């Protein structure tokens, strides 16, 4: 859908006075909202996303989750421009199959992350407008989270939030999981149940304050037994 200059700042009413001739130009991108989160634990990883797909002031769908299962031990969360998210996940799936056929084994999380970095950099001059976060188990069975910028810069983290509400969620995660800005608190390692509860609470907060986040929450929990999914309702307004 062509994006128009009517909403320069989403959520803000535009002042209607005549400013002079304005050049309207086709933009290849559009912002479809959505928030993604990933947390790595000792022997598990969680990737969660909301399921709202919006554009400007409208909601296109209330059931469009942003987590995509790549292998039995890896899930990717993509938010940003939905068109690029779909194409990117198709490309990653194809590359995973190619690897499986030529190397006779599944790609590990670290390898997928490194590959995604080069795929994204191949579009350095015309980027995929996608904020990616990969969550999964590494070769030693420990949880791993890899976060990316739109052109492929990446690093391994313990937790990361991406997408429209990322600036609200990241400080909360820094405080609760990273124990930043807390004095005299024991650094208890995160258990799986506590992590899932934290993720749900964090998204409920995000839905309160970010217009592009809401409707429902899809949580994927990755353990050595496999990937289990849960859906939790969020605010629909």
């Amino acid at each position, binding site marked *: 859908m062509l*994006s*128009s*200059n009517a*909403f*320069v*700042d*989403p959520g803000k009413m535009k002042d209607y006075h005549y400013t002079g001739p304005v050049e309207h*130009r086709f*933009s*290849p*991108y*559009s*912002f479809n909202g959505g928030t993604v989160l990933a947390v790595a634990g000792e022997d598990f990883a969680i990737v969660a996303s909301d399921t709202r797909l919006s*554009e*400007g002031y409208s909601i296109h769908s209330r059931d469009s989750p942003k987590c995509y299962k790549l292998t039995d031990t890896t899930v990717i969360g993509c938010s940003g*421009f939905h068109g690029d998210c779909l*194409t990117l996940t198709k*490309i990653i799936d*194809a*590359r995973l199959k*190619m690897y499986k056929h*030529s190397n006779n084994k599944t790609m590990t999380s670290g390898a997928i992350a490194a590959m995604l*970095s*080069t*795929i*994204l*950099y*191949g*579009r*350095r*001059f*015309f*980027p995929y*407008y996608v904020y990616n976060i990969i969550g999964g188990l590494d070769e030693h069975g420990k949880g791993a989270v890899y*976060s990316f*910028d*739109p*052109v*492929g*810069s*990446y*690093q391994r*983290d313990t937790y990361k939030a991406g997408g429209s509400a*990322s*600036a609200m969620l990241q400080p909360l995660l820094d405080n609760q999981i990273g124990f930043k800005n807390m004095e005299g608190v024991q650094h208890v390692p995160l258990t799986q149940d506590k992590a899932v509860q934290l993720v749900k609470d964090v998204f409920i907060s995000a839905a309160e304050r970010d217009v592009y986040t809401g409707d429902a929450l899809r949580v994927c929990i990755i353990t050595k037994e496999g990937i289990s999914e849960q859906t939790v309702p969020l605010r629909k307004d």
Partner: protein
Amino acid sequence: MALFQVSGLKSYAELREQILPARQTHLFDRTNHYNFGTKTQEFAVPLGVDPSGFLGTCSRDGGVSIDLNHGTTTLAFKFRHGVIVAVDSRASAGRYLASNDVNKVIEINPYLLGTMSGSAADCQYWERLLAKECRLYRLRSNHRISVAAASKLLCNMMLGYRGMGLSMGSMICGWDKEGPGLYYVDDRGTRLSGRMFSTGCGSSYAYGVVDSGYREDMAVEEAYELGRRGIAHATHRDAYSGGAVNMYHMQQDGWIKVCKDDVSELIHRYRKGMF
């Protein structure tokens, strides 16, 4: 695949193209979605638009805001006992702090280090490519690549894409037959050998501190402290630098990682002596 590449069974023209990809830039003026080019990287370019300004124009429409990870202070200097490399660890995307915990020193091999400043993706990608070329050189010619040659490879890669909006300021440090080596390479193709460099938005502050304390015959601990102070004071005054000081020491038999100190604790410690 990999063995075929490594064995070097190619014509001269193909081999030259492998070593100097900058000779022929693979720019296609159509968006190449299915980039399965595993041997040579292809880059998609937007049609009829100047690539360096393209992202800026997209950022005004419909809430689209593509911010790439940026910003740094890095410094390196040679002295009697080798080369000290010190970097901060902050990555910012526009006004948002993407991470305070990035590793901006790429360990190319046990005797070569590269630093990253400017656009995080550009640095990571091209230095990873440099690591691959250095490894292939070692396998094909049975001796280690010199620091001068490694920095020249990187410089030529940058020259191939000059004017397209890449942003990278890197220092290649190593120890080869000529002794300790330090080169500064940037996205415009500048390549300089020198005794001391600092790059990034906080570089002016780091230069001030290191210039005032530098002596060629410093002891090792003194040099560590100088590197630490340079980065700590730069992060104190530059908004886009911060996090922790990652410091490496390049010695004759390879590099060692010296320390990773949180900047706020360092500033607190220096403050006590200041007032």
